[in-house]
């Protein structure tokens, strides 16, 4: 176990947090986890709307190759992972935007290429490649103050970018073509989203691992979409659920000696399943005993909408 060090470690160590966060290493884990728990859904809300839920997964596999390259070259793996993930994310976006290949095919190409390159590079690194395991599944309990510092800086960058460009990204994900007609730089917006996804993946590598980061980008958002009716509300609820999953997941991991990355994701999945069941039950409209007849002026029209339900909204 690496003990908290430096100024950040000292600050965290003085925080009188209750169990399970009374220990230094748990406080560092909490700090890093909360940053990722909040930031990952903030990016995920745009990815889910663009039907790119697996983007985080694809970039995670590229980051894996970057980590392996870092271990082989004996440089800090976070920087090589960042370089490979950002370049790969931009390449995926380039392929997607030019219609050279479909979104899922573009992701699959990098997904498998990344993991294969990672395995090959790791096999050439020392220790039989064992040093790469913490990046695959996360190792939040062994995180040190320098890791937390990098994660916090990346997190601030992600939140600042969303605060500054979130409205333009929203206009793009609602209707890309209209945004383009209006003069919003759609290509730059999509590239920015790809880069932010890469940055989030790299920041989250030590928290939940490259294999699970996509879950933290998607599951809280899926829950937020059930609970909230506004985009702003969905972002807020998703970030709150991401943070809750980190706190509850870390507590469960400490209590029952579980893998923390997996525990965090399982909490997020459990929250989604529970909210979906409860929310789905509440939102389901009452089934009419007999079909409600449509007014004569609507007969013969088909707008793909259930008009028997329309009139309740007016």
């Amino acid at each position: 176990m690496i003990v908290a060090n430096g100024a950040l470690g000292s600050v965290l160590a003085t925080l009188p947090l209750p169990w399970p966060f009374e220990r230094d290493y748990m406080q560092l884990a909490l700090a890093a986890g909360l940053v990722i728990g909040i930031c990952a859904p903030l990016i995920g809300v745009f990815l889910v709307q663009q039907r790119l839920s697996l983007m985080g997964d694809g970039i995670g596999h590229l980051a894996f190759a970057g980590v392996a390259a870092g271990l082989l070259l004996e440089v800090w793996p976070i920087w090589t992972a960042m370089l490979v993930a950002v370049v790969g994310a931009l390449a995926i976006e380039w392929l997607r935007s030019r219609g050279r290949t479909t979104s899922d095919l573009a992701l699959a190409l990098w997904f498998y290429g990344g993991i294969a390159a990672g395995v090959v590079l790791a096999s050439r690194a020392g220790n039989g490649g064992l040093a790469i395991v913490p990046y695959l599944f996360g190792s939040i309990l062994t995180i040190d103050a320098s890791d937390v510092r990098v994660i916090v800086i990346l997190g601030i960058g992600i939140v600042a970018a969303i605060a500054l460009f979130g409205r333009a990204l929203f206009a793009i994900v609602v209707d890309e073509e209209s945004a383009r007609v209006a003069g919003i730089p759609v290509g730059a917006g999509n590239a920015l989203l790809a880069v932010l996804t890469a940055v989030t993946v790299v920041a989250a590598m030590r928290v939940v691992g490259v294999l699970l980061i996509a879950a933290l980008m998607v599951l809280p958002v899926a829950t937020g979409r059930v609970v909230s009716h506004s985009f702003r509300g969905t972002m807020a609820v998703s970030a709150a659920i991401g943070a809750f999953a980190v706190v509850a997941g870390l507590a469960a991991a400490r209590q029952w000696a579980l893998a923390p990355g997996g525990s965090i994701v399982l909490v997020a999945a459990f929250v989604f399943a529970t909210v979906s069941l409860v929310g789905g039950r509440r939102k389901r409209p009452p089934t009419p005993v007999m079909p409600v007849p449509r007014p004569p002026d609507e007969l013969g029209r088909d707008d793909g909408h259930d008009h028997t339900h329309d009139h309740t909204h007016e």
Partner: protein
Amino acid sequence: MTSPAVLAAHGVSYSYGDEPAVERVDLTVAAGEFVALVGPNGSGKSTLLRLLLGLLTPDAGTVEILGQSPRDLRDRWRIGYVPQRRILDLDVPATVAEVVTSGRTARRGWWRLPGKADRAAVDHALEAVALADLRRRPVGRLSGGQQQRVLIARALACEPSVLVLDEPIAGVDVESQRLFRDSLVHLVEHHDSAVLLVSHELGAVANDLDRVIVMKRRVLFDGPPDELASTGVNLGVHADDLPRWLEELAP
């Protein structure tokens, strides 16, 4: 004095591979004009629209938006665009107000926070399409006609000089068609904006149109609705009249 052209195509042609979609089309739409573009399915209407909006580059000929080539146009927010609703995913978890406010993003500067003028323009647009009371409702829970009005309000919110609509009233209810007509007439009469409407159903706006352009790869007719009526097509009599006539047009 003739109003300046806000949209113009000069000898524009475009092909998908060997398949010509638009051939030597000339047309202009002036400020304050309300023009309908009609044609049978596959006649090149949507392609022409995308050419006029600068989303496609013509193989031959030139396009001008607000007197400039699409590439040189800086104030693109002056173009309002309402796409076909079926190509949109309105499953976005967003309220009516959020979607309509997004129509101001380009005009405001995409990095700036919405201000007083933005809120006033959004309120005005929502009132114009009679959706002010539903501003906090999720768009995904609206009827088809209401969703269409959200998209129109989003385009109106940027106070466009020219509004281009692609099949905006396909399949929407009669009340929404009436509100739709009122909002377009309001835009033309009170804001001197130009409206180019691509639609098969012109009954709701038949009495308000300045011109009708009929195309089937080329422009076959360009003139006032009365002139088109003299050929035996009455835009306002029956919703099926125009589509039937269009399908019978010579290739």
